[in-house]
């Protein structure tokens, strides 16, 4: 199997094109900020950004000017409050409008499932007596083929041009293992036309094969593998580092003021060449403070059948 390991710079340059629909997924966990920063740095334009929870990363990317549209289900700084750059674009068209297309969480998840499964629609029991379908014409009611009285809503498949997912570890072919919160990493990866796996550690294939039930994303759908420790900061990687909650709170302050935000982007994104520079700028003590204690999974025996 040939190696797909590359750098973040090359992976973004190769896989992300102006006008693409891009999904950087990860539900609070494993949000690949480093990929978002590289997309900003490479000044990609006119992207449609899909994510269940746009989070601080999409606030940064929207402020960085890469996006013309958002597809989402919950728009906030989790546990903190608003995403101010995004709100300015939506509420005040400042500095320009931002198109939005919104779902509920279950609707977004099922859009990825439909995309991953090559299904033309996905039925869910949701949206009843809600105004959401009135503002999103892609959410349609239908009756069950078995029973005219049973109504469901359907959502259309979402197939991002590029899906970017972070994992704790992957081998050089892109077989990726995740533990802790899974979010919709698997569904987003299978739904993507092009897929980038970023990981804390590239490991030998034998490590993956020791515990095949732990594999969430198989290399067969992966185009590029990037090893980038702490790439999820200020989000977290279970067992590797904690959420940097202080930064989430700080962002609220930074993003309220467009100038402060521009200064932050310059200092922390544009003036840095790579995520290694970002790690160095925060400094070793910062990373040490985010390391959790140990809580080991224990082992299971698959048995050798030779």
């Amino acid at each position: 199997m040939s190696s797909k390991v590359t750098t973040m710079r090359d992976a973004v340059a190769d896989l992300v094109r102006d006008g693409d629909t891009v999904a950087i997924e990860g539900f609070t966990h494993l949000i690949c900020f480093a990929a978002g920063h590289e997309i900003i740095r490479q000044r990609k334009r006119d992207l449609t950004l899909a994510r269940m929870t746009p989070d601080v990363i999409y606030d940064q990317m929207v402020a960085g000017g890469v996006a013309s549209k958002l597809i989402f289900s919950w728009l906030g700084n989790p546990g903190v409050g608003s995403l101010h750059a995004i709100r300015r674009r939506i509420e005040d068209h400042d500095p320009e409008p931002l198109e939005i297309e919104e779902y509920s969480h279950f609707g977004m998840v099922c859009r990825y499932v439909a995309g991953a499964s090559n299904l033309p629609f996905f039925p869910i029991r949701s949206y009843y007596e809600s105004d959401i379908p009135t503002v999103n014409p892609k959410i349609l009611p239908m009756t069950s083929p078995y029973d005219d009285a049973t109504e469901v809503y359907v959502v259309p498949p979402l197939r991002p041009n590029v899906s970017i997912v972070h994992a704790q570890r992957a081998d050089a072919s892109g077989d990726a293992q995740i533990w802790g919160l899974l979010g919709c990493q698997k569904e987003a990866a299978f739904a993507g036309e092009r897929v980038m796996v970023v990981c804390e550690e590239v490991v030998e294939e034998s490590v993956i094969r020791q515990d095949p039930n732990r594999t969430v994303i198989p290399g067969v759908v992966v185009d590029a593998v990037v090893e980038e420790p702490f790439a999820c900061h200020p989000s977290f990687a279970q067992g590797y580092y904690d959420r940097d909650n202080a930064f989430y709170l700080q962002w609220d302050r930074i993003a309220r003021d467009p100038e402060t935000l521009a200064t932050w982007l310059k200092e922390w994104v544009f003036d840095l060449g790579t995520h290694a520079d970002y790690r160095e700028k925060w400094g070793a003590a910062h990373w040490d403070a985010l390391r959790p204690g140990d809580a080991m999974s224990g082992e299971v025996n698959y048995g050798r059948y030779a």
Partner: protein
Amino acid sequence: MSAVAEPDLGYSRTEMMIAASARGLEGATNCFVGVGLPNIVCNLAQRTVALDLQLVYESGVFGAKPERLPLSIGDPTLATGATAITSMFELFAFYLQAGLIDVAFLGGAQIDRFGNLNTTVIGPYDAPKVRLPGSGGACEIAIHARHILVIMRQAERSFVDRLDFRTSPGHSGDPAHDAARGWHGTGPTSVVTDLGTYGFDDATGEMTLITLHPGMTLDDVRANMGWEPKVSPDLGETPAPTPEELRLIREELDPRGVYAK
């Protein structure tokens, strides 16, 4: 909100809200937990009225045992030591849509007298005055969780006669219609605010004041809602937080007073 003086009762109005909400979880088997206050409420209930309460998070965690107060619904402390972690698809499809969730907390920027909630927008959708987070899982939680508990601070701008946007359905105002929906959920069961607790009238589905918190008056309530409140003929007073409830909130659950101050 209209100014209501903070009475000096030895506890804050938020602590009263937390204690009253936790008591509403008596007998619950599992609870879909939101971030912030519901999180403290559920943890308090686990230590008082619902010892076997299993905490469920839309991030895919069932049976969480957080060692610290989670900072968000996706805190790593929720994953370590949980009973099960599942994909979000399965959490929403196999647990929530399947009807396995007993109680869920919801809140919002606006609520109407039937418990419909707006978490999407203030003002017109296409020209918002304030763009709110949107549904998240609230829309489907409102439909599928067997009981919905609402916890919200009360104010005239949030307890409104007419929502700007209905994100999550509550009661329709027509109980016959509600019964025929065939949803797992029975809709909002109670609303706990910083002023009192409300139930919903069986005959009309309308929010009804059941108890006033100590020190609060009916005038405080009227001054902080956009419609004339229906009041239970048996209107009572919410029992004050017990010393044990206060100790748990202050010493174990929120020692830094982030949420409960």
